[in-house]
């Protein structure tokens, strides 16, 4: 037996392979580490173990030891220690790895168990895969490929259950497809802390439903759809819209708050169809909010800006940049950056402020944190603005200082990177006194009043990074192309810097990071390509004195401030 590398590791044997696993690992996870797949339905790594699907039955055994002498009993045929295999199969989810535990997943007994469970799960299943939204990402379908009979021995009538129960505003349930794994029930109890789902009736007639008078309406309800192993719980928004195998998955970050939940954006031919959480055990586990899934609608929102304009007139990009350059070189400039911009954009925004000698502002957004995956700071990247040096103090919700400066006649030109200045506290009268260069995606008061309007991209159409509340640097990627007429913010900012008489700067993240790493101490030695999928935690101590707004969340405890 290989000796474990650390006292917290124990050695187990899965299908003849010895592997050291952390204490407390169950057999499913231990097998995963050994590269062996143990099929399962009800087990979910982030929920309690109930052991009800019985799909993960495996054979387990312990090395044989002579009870009298405590010495290992050797198998004369192989010379190795004999293994006492248990007479019955054990469920992998509820069996914890013990030192010396042996697991077999390829024996006839295990195969019989899996085939038996599959047959049982399918006898009352409607088998409506052709019209089922889960098809293509269905655990039942997948395991049926491996362990299904291929024909049915069941000739009795199938159970009839409710087909389209609206459990809440966003979730629709098909009870006939439900395999009663109870993942959704456990999620609501254990993660969302909203005890709303349960089973009624018993035996084969057991039916999932909401408690009387309650609805599945919490802001995390769509996670039940994600973890449903079959097509029982479906997203009312996504239902019957698209076959999942046509969709391209792009890793992204939720921009709802400073939590920065990791997400996957599912798109086809330039159209986003849904957003789901991406597992990150240090940030959001496998969860995300319902509200964060709606942001993709901004891509094709009715007010999406797509035409470059100088005043009321359509213009080319060159002409617009030139016009902006004249304004910027006229002096008395102020720059309004955004906590929704990427680190790279904030870096270029700072460059723009530096070369025009402009004061830089940021618009704060705050709300009530839900102690889970939405924090009180509703900007995804305030820390980016701090780290890149765009701002020194934390932003307020209203641009009071800028308003005073306008009233005092100290400002002639404002560059706003995606922030509606009226919403940020300026009055229309104040706005009328200045020339606004506006980079934005949505028609609003500021776009209507802008002297130079430069349509830009949403988070789903560009590459970049955010720094979340944990000072974790996280990457997002372009899922779909932007509309014709919209230009990447980085290109616009780099050209504005050049037009204002500043240096010639890179306009795509990988090259920009060379400059960032060289210039910003906290980001030294980081390359854009080198940032892992699950992010990179930066040292936040230089900014420990700042009073960030977040309270405790799922994987976040605010640092105590003195």
């Amino acid at each position, binding site marked *: 037996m290989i000796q474990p590398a650390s006292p917290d590791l124990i050695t187990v044997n899965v299908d003849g392979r010895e592997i050291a696993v952390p204490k407390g690992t169950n057999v499913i996870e231990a097998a995963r580490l050994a590269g062996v797949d143990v099929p399962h339905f009800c087990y979910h790594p982030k929920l309690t173990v109930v052991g009800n699907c019985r799909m993960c*039955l495996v054979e387990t055994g312990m090395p044989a030891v002579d009870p009298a002498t405590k010495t290992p009993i050797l198998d004369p045929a192989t010379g190795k220690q004999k293994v006492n295999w248990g007479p019955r199969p054990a469920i992998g989810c509820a069996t914890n790895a013990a030192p010396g535990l042996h697991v077999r997943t390829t024996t006839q007994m295990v195969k019989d*168990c899996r085939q*038996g469970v599959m047959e*049982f*799960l399918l006898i009352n299943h409607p088998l409506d895969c052709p019209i089922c939204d889960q098809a293509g990402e269905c655990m039942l379908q997948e395991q049926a490929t491996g362990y299904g009979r291929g024909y049915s021995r069941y000739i009795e009538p199938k159970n009839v259950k409710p087909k389209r129960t609206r459990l809440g505003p966003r979730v629709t349930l098909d009870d006939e497809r439900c395999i*009663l794994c109870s993942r959704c029930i456990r999620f609501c109890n254990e993660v969302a802390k909203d005890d709303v789902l349960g089973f009624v009736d018993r*035996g*084969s007639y057991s039916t999932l439903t909401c408690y009387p008078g309650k609805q599945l309406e919490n802001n995390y309800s769509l996670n039940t759809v994600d973890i449903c192993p079959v097509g029982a719980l479906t997203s009312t928004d996504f239902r019957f819209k698209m076959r999942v195998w046509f969709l391209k998955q792009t890793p992204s970050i939720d921009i709802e708050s400073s939590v920065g939940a990791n997400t996957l954006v599912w798109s086809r031919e330039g159209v986003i169809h849904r957003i789901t959480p991406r597992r990150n055990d240090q940030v959001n586990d496998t969860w995300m909010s319902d509200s964060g899934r709606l942001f993709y609608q901004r891509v094709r929102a009715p007010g999406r800006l797509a035409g470059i304009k100088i005043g009321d007139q359509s213009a080319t990009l060159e002409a617009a940049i030139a016009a902006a350059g004249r304004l910027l070189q006229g002096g008395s400039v102020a720059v309004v950056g955004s906590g929704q911009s990427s680190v790279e954009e904030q870096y270029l925004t700072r460059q723009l402020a530096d070369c025009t000698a402009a004061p830089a502002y940021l618009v704060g957004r705050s709300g009530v944190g839900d102690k889970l995956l939405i924090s009180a700071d509703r900007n995804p990247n305030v820390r980016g603005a701090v780290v890149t040096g765009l701002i020194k103090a934390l932003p307020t919700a209203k641009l009071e200082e800028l308003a005073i400066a306008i009233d005092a006649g100290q400002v002639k030109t404002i560059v706003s990177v995606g922030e509606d200045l009226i919403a940020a506290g300026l009055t229309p009268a104040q706005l009328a006194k200045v020339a606004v260069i506006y980079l934005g995606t949505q028609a609003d008061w500021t776009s209507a009043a802008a002297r130079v309007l430069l349509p830009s991209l949403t988070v789903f159409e560009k590459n970049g990074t955010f720094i979340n509340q944990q000072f974790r640097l996280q990457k997002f990627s372009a899922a779909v192309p932007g509309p014709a007429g919209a230009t990447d913010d980085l290109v616009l900012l780099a050209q504005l810097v050049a037009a204002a008489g500043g240096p010639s700067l890179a306009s795509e993240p990988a090259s920009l990071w060379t400059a960032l790493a060289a210039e910003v101490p906290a980001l030294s030695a980081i390359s854009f390509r080198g940032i892992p999928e699950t992010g990179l935690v930066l040292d936040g101590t230089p900014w420990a004195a700042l009073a960030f707004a977040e309270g405790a969340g799922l994987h976040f405890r605010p640092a105590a401030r003195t």
Partner: protein
Amino acid sequence: MAEQRRLIFQHIDEPGYSNDLACYLRHGGYEVLRKVVAKPPAEVVDEVKKSGLRGRGGAGFPCGVKWTLLDRKSGKPIYLVVNADESEPGTFKDRYIIHQDPHQKLEGIMITCFANNVKQAYVYIRGEFPEGARILEAAIAEARAANFVGPNILGTPYSCEIYVHRGAGAYICGEETGLIESLEGKRPYPRIKPPYFPAVLGLYQCPTIVNNVETLCHVKHIAAMGGEAYAKIGTPNNTGTRIFCVSGQVKKPGYYEFEVGKLTLGQLLNEVCGGPLPGRTFKAVIPGGSSAKVLKFGERYKGKRKVGAEMVDFDWALEDVPLDFDSLALAGSMGGSGGVIVMDDSVSMVEALGNINAFYGHESCGQCTPCREGSAWMQRVTARMVHGQARKEDGALLKNIADQIAGRTICAFGEACAWPTQSFVAKFGAEFEAYAAKPAKSPAAIELV
């Protein structure tokens, strides 16, 4: 003819014996409790261990061992849960104790509680026993008024309360962890073991003893006569007396109490119960409640068994099988709950299995896949067969479904629903095949539960 030895059922059906406290006291009631509370609690535990008492609920697990498994170091309270959810078809012993001699049971409970330092005991009584629950409540009130139950019993510092909780009508509530879940106010989904052994993580995640009503009555008699004296009753490893609830096609069905192992199945059915009905012959018997495997008349059981320290050959006809836990296990069935169900040659085994399967299909809690889907499937197959659409392959199919359930479920219900099918098909396979050739019966002709 074998003589009954009535220990638990001493006063059952005795003319003039009533279920009130005064009558119980006239018959020496609560004297054992009085004796016990004057001694250290560990003594009772020792006596129970010495007695070799095995649980009378179905599994036959040694009671003393069960008590020693209790996690006494956790610092959490220890609970006693009395399993009075007598719902195994064919079993009707606990209800007579509750109805006619409730104080015997309460005394057994109090002795057990005192021995294990239990401060709260719960009697989980089957929902279909409303009268039993009423009688128990009344008996507890009487006992409390007389200071046998409640604070500082019999002038000692020891206090213990007994609460009655009525079930809502589910067979699975007789499974100890399902019962605990139900008692906690949840759906009675049995818990996974490990880690949820009641002795460690039972009621409210505290160490808990779950004992059957009859078992607790035996505890009273063990405390009265001493463990060694009790161990002399019955046969080694199968001590004490046992109540057999005989139902079905015999001349004198009913309940009979005998020393364990001192009586054979043949003696019970032919001598005690008067043999088959006129003109009939016995065909099969289920010896331990409907979930036990069926035994077929004409079968022989051969092998080696342990007598004392040595292994001895045995060769039994069904009638020779001694009625104890070990012998019935050797014959391929089990003593179970003591419910003996007798079938004569008028019975169709397909229809009998249809009835049993209808019960288990209806009672599966639905928590885990094999039992939930398998029991319902077997129910539907046998129902179809008796309704005249049997196919030749149905017997093999039934057995295969049962094989896919047994040993793969969360609780023992998997075995309970699989064993009847496995044994019926194995032993009466020809009857199942012949059924396919039978003309269709009108569905109304056979009323399944």
